[in-house]
């Protein structure tokens, strides 16, 4: 009997109560107090915030896919609302992150506010602390810049909310307030950060990165959309900001095509690095279907027509007829074009991955058998490294360049033109053209401005500029109401093709499209203290 009782007791003892039984700690998470006492962990927190800045090698391709440069073949699912004018403040949240940036931006802004609150008392050496603060200021400035460009003035949130307080009553700061806030951050970053980050730090925020952002920001600020009175001091500020980078040790990389494939080349001011274990899908997504890529980023005829002939003449006149001076042959349209055309566009007959692209019915790259053959008749070559493997995973390692000297030259040229220094403007545009062997421009006055704008369209294509440029120049009502065009090649005899323009998508412009809508939910949740952008109510 005793044995039995012992047995019973033993069984029950196993199940005996233990007061601390439920006091478990997560085994995969760090507690808050540990993090903010440890410099390395804080630095790790800073690192994560770099992801706040969208790059163009993910699905969204920055904002290029919403412009007239590239027709994003896969946006049948992703962005059809944009293509069919069905976009509203309600469904804008279904768009890609660079376009629908609101929530992402503020989530990172909150992270940075947490950082600024905690860093004060963190036991970290001052020099190291200042470097981290300056990096965070740069990132914060970049985030607010993108908000400013997307939405105009937005609320400046500089505190960490807690869940129990009221979130209503937040209002939008003015465009100018946000701009000043960004500039103040950038000036602090410029003062603290090394002009160039090298070695293991390459890719971190640098003084020059801050200068380049400032240059773009001030150029946009001086542009017609934000400068209706054409206040020349704004152009001067823009010019000064760009000038600060003209002689800072950067040079135009001689090969326009390779420029986008080589990390840390001489032209790059600020880039995002990738490596094979954390790459981008871009390479596979952009590669032609005939090479087992997805062929999603298809340049438009609108972009193709913007490339000049090697003689510097545009193939078409403003009225759409062939420019008789250009030597353009509609039956052989891809000869004698600006070398940047060949570095950007894969057209019927272009050599790529060891064969000539076939973009005609029955051709290898317009053949049934892939999810998306091109509708425009073109595929993208820019940013695509033929040496990289085609695989479904993220294996692309080429950089995304946020700022490069070529842009700075064109920023400077545009500002100098507006300040009346046409010769300086021409010089810098021509520097960009000389790199690819295009003849100098000689125009002046309004014609020169058109050349400068045109040069940006060509030189900076697919880098996220066009969408914003047509808006700030206020030429969007013209450019954005043109249909997205493509071409259809037909094989008529061996090696002989005909080309026929096709409308890929009709577009309508409305002035509300100068800015994106703030998500409708946000306005309601603010208690209507946020005011929606015009036309989106």
């Amino acid at each position, binding site marked *: 009997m005793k044995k039995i009782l012992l047995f019973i007791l033993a069984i029950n003892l196993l199940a005996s109560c233990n007061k601390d039984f439920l006091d478990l700690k997560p085994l995969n998470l760090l507690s808050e107090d540990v993090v903010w006492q440890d410099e390395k962990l804080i630095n790790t927190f800073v690192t994560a915030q770099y992801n706040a800045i969208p790059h163009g090698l993910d699905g969204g391709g920055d904002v290029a896919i919403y412009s007239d440069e590239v027709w994003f073949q896969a946006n049948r699912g992703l962005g059809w609302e944009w293509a069919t004018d069905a976009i509203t403040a*309600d469904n804008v949240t279904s768009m890609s992150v660079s376009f629908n940036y609101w929530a992402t931006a503020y989530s990172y802004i909150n992270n940075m506010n947490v950082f600024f609150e905690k860093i004060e008392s963190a036991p970290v050496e001052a020099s190291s602390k200042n470097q981290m603060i300056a990096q965070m200021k740069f990132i914060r400035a970049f985030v607010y810049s993108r908000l400013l460009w997307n939405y105009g003035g937005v609320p400046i*949130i500089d505190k960490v909310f807690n869940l129990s307080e009221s979130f209503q009553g937040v209002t939008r700061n003015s465009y100018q307030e946000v701009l000043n806030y960004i500039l103040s951050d950038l000036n602090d970053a410029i003062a603290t950060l090394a002009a160039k980050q090298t070695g293991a730090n390459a890719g971190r925020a640098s003084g020059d990165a801050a200068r380049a952002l400032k240059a773009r920001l001030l150029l946009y600020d001086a542009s017609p959309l934000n400068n209706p009175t054409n206040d020349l001091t704004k152009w001067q500020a823009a010019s000064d900001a760009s000038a600060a980078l003209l002689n800072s040790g950067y040079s135009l990389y001689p090969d326009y095509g390779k420029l986008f494939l080589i990390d840390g080349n001489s032209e790059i001011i600020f880039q995002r690095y990738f490596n094979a274990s954390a790459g981008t899908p871009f390479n596979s997504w952009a590669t032609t279907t005939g090479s087992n890529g997805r062929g999603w980023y298809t340049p438009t005829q609108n972009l193709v027509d913007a490339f000049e002939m090697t003689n510097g003449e545009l193939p078409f006149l403003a009225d759409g007829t062939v420019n008789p001076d250009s030597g353009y042959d509609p039956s052989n349209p891809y000869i004698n074009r600006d070398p940047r055309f060949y570095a950007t566009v894969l057209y019927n007959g272009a050599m790529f991955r060891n064969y000539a692209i076939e973009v005609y019915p029955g051709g290898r790259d317009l053949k*049934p058998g892939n*999810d998306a053959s091109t*509708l425009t008749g073109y595929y993208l070559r820019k940013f695509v490294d033929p040496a990289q493997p085609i695989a479904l995973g993220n294996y692309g390692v080429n950089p995304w360049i946020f700022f490069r000297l070529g842009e700075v030259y064109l920023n400077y040229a545009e500002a100098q033109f507006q300040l009346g220094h046409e010769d300086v403007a021409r010089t810098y545009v021509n520097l960009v053209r000389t790199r690819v062997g295009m003849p100098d421009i000689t125009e002046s006055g309004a014609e020169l401005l058109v050349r400068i704008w045109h040069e940006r369209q060509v030189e900076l294509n697919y880098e996220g500029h066009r969408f914003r440029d047509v808006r700030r120049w206020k030429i969007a009502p013209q450019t954005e109401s043109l249909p997205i065009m493509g071409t259809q090649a037909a094989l008529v005899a061996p090696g002989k093709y005909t080309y026929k323009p096709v409308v890929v998508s009709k577009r309508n412009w409305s002035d509300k499209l100068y800015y994106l809508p703030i998500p409708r*939910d*946000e306005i309601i949740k603010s208690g209507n203290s946020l005011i929606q952008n015009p036309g989106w109510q």
Partner: protein
Amino acid sequence: MKKFGLYSPSGHRYAVIKKGLIIVKITLLLILISTFNLLATDTYSQTARVSLKLNQISLKQALKEIERSSEFYFLYNNELVDVERKVDIEAKNEQINTILDHLFANQGVKYTVYDKQIVISPANMPLPQNVQRKIAGKVTDQSGASLPGVTVVVKGTTTGLITDGNGNYSLSNIPENAVLQFSFIGMKSQEFVVGNKATVNVAMVEETIGIEEVVAIGYGTQKKTVVTGAVSAVNFKEISVSPTPNLTQGLAGQMPGVIINSRGGRFGKEVTDIFIRGKNTINDATPLYVIDGVVRNYEGLDRLDPNQIESITILKDASGAIYGSQAANGVILVTTKRGIKGKPIIDFSFNHGFAGPARQIKMADSYTFASKVNLENTLKGLAPQYTDAELQKFKDGSDPVKYPNTNWYDETLRKSRSQEKTNLSVRGGTDEVKYFLSLGMLNQDDPYIHGFGLNKQYNMLANIDANINKNLTVSFNFSGRLDDIITPFLNDFGDHAIQCFPTVLAKYPNGLYADGRGSNNALLMVQDKNYGYDSYAKALITNTLGAAYNIPWVKGLSLSGSYSYDYYKEYQKQYYGDAYIYKYNETTGEYVKTRASSRTPTPELSNSWTQSVVKTAHSKLAFKRTIAEKHTIDAFLGYEQSKTDVVSLSAGRKQFISGAIQELFAGSSDKNQQSNSGFASEAAYQNYFGRVLYDYMNKYMAQFQFRYDGSQNFPKENRFGFFPGISAGWLISKEAFMENVPVIDHLKLRASWGKMGNDKVAAFQYLRSYGFGNNYSFNGTVVSGLVQSGVPNPNITWETARTTDIGLETRLWKGQLGLEMDYFYTKRENILTKRNATVPSYVGLTLPNENIGSVENQGFELLLSHNHEINKDFRYTLSGNFTYAHSNVLDIDEVPQQEAYQKATGMPIGSYMVYEIIGIFDDAADVLRYPHLAGTAPGDLIRRDANNDGVINSFDRVRKGLTSIPEIQYGLTLRVGYKQFEIAATLQGQARASVVGLAGVTSFYEPASVGNFVSWFAEDGWTPENPTGTRPRPGLYGQNVGGTSMAYFNGAFLRLKNAEIAYNLPKALLSKFNVQACRVFVTGYNLISLDALKDLGIDIEMGANPDNLTPDRIINIGVNLTF
């Protein structure tokens, strides 16, 4: 209530049966009588005194009054004893004999008192007239053990007796044409024609729908008649086991209130949805699985071996409250078989099934496809892709190599493949030790033609109970399950199989793999292991050691405890190697070998290994006793704790030089091509629980149960919650006034209310923490990032469900008709959701889940059953169930929608918004007549301008209330027995559901740029020649049907889920081979389906995820042997 008595001509024994609840006592008594020749112990009858004063009432009434005022009860046959005559009684503290002597004076009636039982019979029963012969025999149970106490009656007479202690009987003076009836409580009555036989041996078969059926109710069992909660039980002896290897799927349609849908899935990894009474929460709504008393949530029921299961019980209402914080979604209790006393019974079963897809997606053929490509091109202003001559070749198939018609499903899917299920078990025991041991095996062939896939499963179970002494019982339960699964890498299979053009070959005539779809050849994918595969080796070992001790000093008090140790391991391996397709060069005539497009540029392997250990201990102090034969108390208090520890390791290497060895070490030795990781987590529960069942005379029942539950998921202050459940039942049929309603055998009203919790949320949401992630590359090197967790919610706690249930059960006409009805109402509150409506994104906070949502769910269930035994050869049962459950979101902190018809609040859980399609634009003029999207052309979808603002945009999306979870589910099971044959069939149906039939299969009907499409689009498709076509034009740019009502189909269906024909071989034949029973059968699964997706070839339950396999149709042949 009808009573009858039996008279044995041998004179001195009376055996009496009275239907009803005293039946058990009688049985016991009968056994006593037959075994010990009845020692008359007149203690009660000598001591008891009765006082009564009654005038001019019937004898029947008088006897009833005596029963009521004493513990005596009477047994008589009202055909032999006149109980309607009026009598008077006047007794003061009289012995029963005195009263009875008075009542029966000069009536030719005698009575015999067996303690409290009094048998009344005619004093001189006439002997049967035609005195002829003698018959004897032995009665046994199924296992062959002798059965004492079985009533043996000559049909149509009162001649009869009961079997003796060895199960023997002997009757003389039997008419030649006599039919012997054998009956025994809990067993099916049997009849045998005596004919000229001198011996009739009978094996009694257990009654399946016995009134004393016992059901598991969580930490105990209860007689079904007195259960007060809403409980559905499946006894595995009753259902025809479905041939599907997945038990969950096999149960579909069998139980009211249990909604089961097969969502397709992968080979060896079927996806099944199981919801108890619909979906009650926007969060995890899966029920709690308790297997042999221990919470075991490993893959639900999916991979259990039905041969090892005794019963499955579903607790649907407050009866689940005993499982407290985990019970809100319902509780599924699985009880495995245990040993029973008797000589060993060896069961062997073997099943061989032929399985094939029940549906196959109907893709357009090459001619249709090519025609639509041309139409799409033409509509875009492009040149047609195919010439008329080419179209003709596709159409007539005259050049099958250059102009093939490839159906990628036909190419890849096997129409029929084998599966085998084998089980061997032995069950038996002595007074001291009882055992059940079982080994099951399952083997399924790959669903793909010449595929390399594998699905093997082994289930081993051992349940042992030992009586150490008269008060102590110990038990040990062991179960082991091994799964070996290999599947092709299928993530893109559906895409390829669907979108790949029918105009290209899968394989060249010389047997080389063709290009397929951009070097993704669906056939290569499933046939060449090097293309990539997933393999899983899983093992689940569960052990429970338990002991129960009857504390001798207090009658009815017992102490029990158990300790369980569950070990689960999963080893996963994913390999992508080099596989090749061949591109034919027409000019050179060469086949150019090309690496097939894969997920990885070089061969790579990733491995992961996860183990989970769950230790559960519980102890229970229980008290069960019946006091004064009226008040039964069954109560206990328990304590339980469980701890889960999970660890995981993973590693990978790239750039395998050779695929010959697919293990880590053989990968690249470059550190940059290697990776590894690992993690750990732990979880714990601690709780106290108890229950009191009170039962007055099996007539009035009440129950209270509770659980005081603690979960580590929540902060200390909110960690413990109290979950009570109460219920009550009234067995109306037990009331005296019901005796005049002979039709009703059983009538019970029951009601319950309870509070339960759902804690299936991420742990530690109350802590502010940081985790590694959001990495970034500097200078080409990945640098770790650190991510702050969301805002902690220090108040986080469980969801709570308050459930009310009212039920009515009845059984009429001796069990011929059974009816159960339940109404239920559940209000789920504290649902964890984010404060959507109030917290704007600009505050930047990652919101925690907060207990703010609420949802109500109500409906009713109906269970109807009908048993009929027409004659000894022909019997059938029919059982139907019906469930209606409708959920309604009360509050999810929804942002006010711009349009009232977009509100999710007030709609069922899972409601969704779509553009309503009201037609197809016929022509250009038609387009102008109605608001449309930019770029709309004839043949495009007409979206309804829901807010009539003349513009089509997101505000025109309309919310739909029907979801993939049906509001109505019903089932019908028919079982017919004719002689040695049995036929069974189960119909399963559902209604008020909506399924996505198109979105997943082909969102984009763009043949020229995307690929093939379901032929549904082409049938009555819009063309310039057919402007009134009801399906859109090809090349609907931006007119993705996915977000429109066109993609959704009525989810109602009626299917013949299971059907079986079985034959039981005659015993006479079997006994020659020492086999006790042999049953051969043919079973079918998923045989017929009536639904709206037939034309698309899509299975209605699985919806349209093309990567998942369609549920199978299975034809199975099998044999069960019992030794």
